[in-house]
């Protein structure tokens, strides 16, 4: 059995390398994007093999799903017939080799330092303090209690990315609209209507699960965001809808970060330490922060598709 597992792991690793090579160096953009999505699907499998289902969920939803759809949408807006740097000029060759050698050495150095990391890691210490965090799943405890500051910074970075994307908006080009599909089949709107309850149900389930098992705000937000992206791509109406609810959109986009900050500052008032909250409040606060963060993440992922602030 272990030989089988070893063979499977080697196959996964080889597949990852091959897909990464294809995604980077293939001539056609479309196959590069498809290879990129397949790469992230395999990456999710790798995380499953490494016993990290939380990361696998986020990787599959964000890497393969949302990023893939974003790249495909961007591809559809590019002029057809142009191809990526098919024939590198001669003076670029040394630079290319230099970059590849540098990347290779970086990878070797990373592998070496990962190999020399302390072995059991911090899992034991996290498990020992799990009772004091208010949740029973170690990953959620780390993300939203023990290292909540890191998570706050991640949310801030995503918000900054949305601001950046929106600042590149309409003034540079014509206002962008949802794609009209080449054929008017009823199947696509029907699919989005049919799947919509699932796009509400699954994030709620993931949020609830996050307190005691793999799940939580990031996968929930990613799934909800994917549902929203499907809506944006299949129907033109939600774009207008977003345009008419700008204030609500702004409030919800900032909700995760705002609630996080309120909780952190409230903890400072109550206990004297930034981000320290009393144990009896912890489960409620963590759940509230998770819900707000998931909503914010979903809207941020949708906002990347708007290419500019709605209503501007």
């Amino acid at each position, binding site marked *: 059995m272990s030989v089988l597992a070893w063979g499977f792991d080697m196959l996964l690793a080889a597949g990852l390398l091959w897909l990464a090579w294809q995604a980077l160096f293939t001539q056609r953009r479309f196959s590069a994007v498809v290879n990129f999505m397949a790469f992230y699907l395999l990456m999710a499998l790798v995380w499953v093999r490494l016993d990290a289902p939380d990361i696998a969920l986020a990787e599959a939803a964000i890497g393969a799903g949302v990023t893939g759809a974003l790249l495909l949408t961007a591809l559809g807006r590019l002029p057809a017939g142009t191809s990526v740097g098919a024939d590198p000029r001669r003076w670029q060759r040394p630079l290319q080799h230099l970059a590849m050698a540098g990347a290779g050495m970086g990878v070797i150095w990373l592998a070496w330092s990962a190999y020399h990391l302390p072995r059991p890691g911090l899992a034991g210490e996290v498990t020992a303090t799990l009772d004091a965090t208010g949740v029973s799943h170690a990953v959620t405890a780390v993300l939203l209690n023990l290292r909540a500051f890191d998570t706050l910074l991640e949310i801030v970075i995503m918000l900054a990315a949305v601001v950046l994307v929106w600042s590149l908006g309409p003034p540079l080009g014509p206002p962008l609209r949802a794609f009209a599909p080449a054929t*008017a089949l009823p*199947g696509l709107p029907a699919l989005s209507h049919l799947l919509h309850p699932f796009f509400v149900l699954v994030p709620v389930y993931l949020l609830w699960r996050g307190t005691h098992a793999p799940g939580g705000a990031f996968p929930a937000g990613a799934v909800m965001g994917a549902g929203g992206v499907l809506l944006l791509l299949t129907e033109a109406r939600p774009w207008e809808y977003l345009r008419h609810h700008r204030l609500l959109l702004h409030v919800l986009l900032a909700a995760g970060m705002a609630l996080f900050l309120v909780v952190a500052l409230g903890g400072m008032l109550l206990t004297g330490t930034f981000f320290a909250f009393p144990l009896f409040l912890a489960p409620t606060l963590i759940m509230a922060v998770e819900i707000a963060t998931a909503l914010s993440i979903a809207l941020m992922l949708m906002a990347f598709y708007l290419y500019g602030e709605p209503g501007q």
Partner: protein
Amino acid sequence: MTEALHWLGYAFVAAGILFFLAGSLGLLRFPDVFTRLHALTKADNLGLGLICLGLALQASGPAEAVKYLLIWLLMLVASGIGATLIASTALACGLAPRQADRPPSTSTSQRPTEQ
């Protein structure tokens, strides 16, 4: 009883893998978009169904088994509609299905009117 269910599950998974292999072979060997879609959606969905059924038979409880079957149902809906969309878009973009008795042409297909 549980033992028998486990072996039945293995049998279903093995059959599902066979269908996946057939579907992948079709994807590689069939001549045009439409036949490739046919191979993928028919064979692979049946293969996925058999694998999900096999895993559901080995599941630890009914909740887990229902989740496996839900995965299959969602895949059926999504891939059915996705395949229809790909095929109709290909037709609208001028890719004609390959006919056995005449060479493939790109202009004979009727274009549906743009909305």
